[in-house]
Structure formats: C-alpha cells, structure tokens
C-alpha cells in the first residue's frame, strides 16, 4: 500500500500515455444515418454537383426533374453499395471536379435541346461516381449501409426540393439567376482544376 502511495504520480502519468492516435472527429452522437447526412452537407464538391444537377433538371422541366429525382439517388445508392462491398482506393479528384463543372456549364448554357433522359443520365453518372467514392470512403472507416442511406436520402430530398423550386419559375430574370448560379459552379470547377494541378486541392 505504501508502495502504491509513493508511486501514485508515476502510475497516473503512465495512465495518460497515448497509444497511436487514430484521431478523428469527436463522435457526433447523431448515429450513422445522420452522420451520413452531415457528411454530404459538409462536402462542398458533392453539394455543388448535386445542386447543379438539380438546377439543370429544374430548368429542363417537370419530366427531367422527375427522372433526375429518381435516377440520381438510385445511382448514388447502387454504386455506394458497390463501393461499400468492393471499395476502391482511387480518389479521382479530377473526375469529381469535371463532373460538377460540366453540370454547372450546362446550367449556364441552358441547352433547350438537351433531352430529358440525357439530363437524368448525366445526373445518374454524377450520382454513380460520388456514390462509389462515398461507399469506398465509408468502407474504409468501417461505416455501414445506414450511413450510405443517410447520404442517399439527403441526395433525394435536396434534389427534390431544388428541382421543384426551379420548375415553376417562368420570369426571365429568375431563370437567368439560375443560369448565373450554374456559371458560378462551372467557375469554381475551373479554379479547382488549377488547384489540383498545383497540388492544393
């Protein structure tokens, strides 16, 4: 007992020794589903592309919007599951930036002749790419399908809200404002390409 009392501080200091610090965020306490939701909301690259896809669908009308609202989350989920089960180590930052840059440029151009199915297909490609990346990232940290469902549900809700806000716009200046937003997304994409080449992206 005397020995323990004498060496109390020694034991106390040793108790504080860190092991390898696999540091990460403090647990959000929200659970895996809402962690997935937050992941998407805090990922500007994912959000910009999602926003651009929803804006494009909204500009092209109700049918394109309906298709996009279904196709993009479905592709995100499908390829997210692929990523979870067969994770890839590829990061593909260039392709990720290219995807939202193209969508932003299309919003800015507002191509009247772009078929509705093509809008949904582009949104689906974007969803597939980011689903695969998200799924792989989730697999790497040991997160499961519930987190992926959180991401996909947020994709669905955001796409639905944005597209349904854009579809009824009829006044010219409102549609122009949407196209300006698309040009900003494309401009961010161009700058990001530069940052990636420089190695700061």
């Amino acid at each position, binding site marked *: 007992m005397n020995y323990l009392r*004498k*060496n109390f*501080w*020694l034991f106390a*200091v*040793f108790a*504080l*020794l*860190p*092991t*390898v*610090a*696999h*540091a*990460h*965020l403090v647990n959000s306490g929200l659970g895996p589903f809402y962690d997935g939701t937050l992941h998407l909301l*805090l990922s*500007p*690259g994912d959000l*910009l592309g999602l926003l651009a896809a929803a804006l494009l669908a909204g500009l092209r009308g109700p049918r394109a919007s309906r298709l996009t609202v279904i196709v993009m989350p479905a592709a995100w989920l499908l390829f997210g599951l692929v990523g979870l089960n067969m994770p890839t180590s590829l990061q593909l930052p260039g392709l990720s930036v290219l995807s939202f840059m193209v969508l932003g440029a299309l919003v*800015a151009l507002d191509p009247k002749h772009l078929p509705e199915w093509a809008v949904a297909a582009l949104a689906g490609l974007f969803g597939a790419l980011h689903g695969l990346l998200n799924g792989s990232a989730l697999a790497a940290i040991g997160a499961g399908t519930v987190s992926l469902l959180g991401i996909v549900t947020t994709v669905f809700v955001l796409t639905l809200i944005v597209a349904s806000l854009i579809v009824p716009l009829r006044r010219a*200046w409102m549609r*122009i404002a949407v*196209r*300006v937003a698309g*040009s*900003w997304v*494309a*401009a*961010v*994409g*161009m*700058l*990001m*390409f*530069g*940052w990636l*080449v*420089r190695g*700061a*992206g």
Partner: protein
Amino acid sequence: MKYKDSTSYYQLFFACAIAVSIAMLLPQVALAHIESGEAGGFLSGLSHPVSGLDHIIAMVAVGLWGAQLGMPAIWVLPVAFPMMMAFGGMLGLIGIPLPGVEVGIALSAVVLGALVLGEVRVSLALSVPIVAFFALFHGHAHGTELQEGQNAMLYSLGFVISTGLLHASGIVIGLLHRWQSGRIVLRGAGTLVMVGGLYFLWQALS
C-alpha cells in the same frame, strides 16, 4: 555514485520515471484526417475580391455597362466575367504566365470606365470578348492567393460568389439607367472608374 539510503534511490528513480513518462506523453503518429480550413477558406475567398479597389471598380463597371447595354448583355457579361476570371486563375495555378497582369487590371478599369462614361453600345459579340479579355488578368492575379491550410474549393467558391455579387451591385446601381438623371449619374460613375483605372495604371507603370 553511491546513495546513502533507499529513500535517495527512490527519489532518483521517481524523477527519472517522471522525465521518461513526460517524454512518452509526446504524441505519436496522429492519423488525423479531418478536413480543415473550411471557414477560413470561404471567408478568405469571399473577402479577397473586395480587398483591392482595382478589382472592385472593374467588376462594378462590368455590371454598370451591362445595365446600360440592356438585355441580354446585362446578364451575359456578369456570367462571362467570372467564368473567364476562373479560367485566368486556372492558367495562373498551372503555371502559364500572363504578361502585364497589373497593367491589364488597371487598363480594364480605364476601358470599362470609358465605355460606361461614353455609354458605348456595341454588339454582344464584341462586348463579351472585351469583358472576357480583362477578366483573364483579374483571375490570374487574384484567384491564386490561397493561404496555407485553407480549403481550396471553399476559397474558390467564396471568390466566385464575391465577384458575382460585385457584378450584381453594378447591375443594381445600373438600374438608374431608366431615368434621365440616373443616366448622368451612371456616366459620372464611369468617369470615377476610369480615373481610378488611370491612377492604378500610373502605379503599375511607375
């Protein structure tokens, strides 16, 4: 070295143990992977375009000129400028030099100010290349100044949004064009922009 009793031995051992323990408390490999610099990056990008008067007057002048030209230039010019500015920024980032950047920026204010002053009406096919040409210089100079540790994407986002809002300010001011007295005010604003551009040009050349 001899010790008189076991107490001295314990004291030495205890001191050594504390020293070793403190050394071992130093952090080991931190496999941290959180993203960082988000808020700083966005705010830095947002504030950068409004931190230089040369940048501000040129971008507001784009909005003013667009408002004078009317549809569709009123929105095409503010779309063309950020996109070409981003392209200029990309050129700077990948290491393609652009000669006379500061002169180009100052000239942009001189030319755009003169166009607003003269209420010069040209076709869209000519106004867009004029604005796009000058936007390259602004992007090359200002789009690449990311501070250490800040998030590049959010910096870019803030930079583009801020630039767009400056154009929007110019367009809103340009709504004065509806009234005769407002047109005079706009031409006065063009004069100010041009004079400011001449000052920056003199600085760039001296």
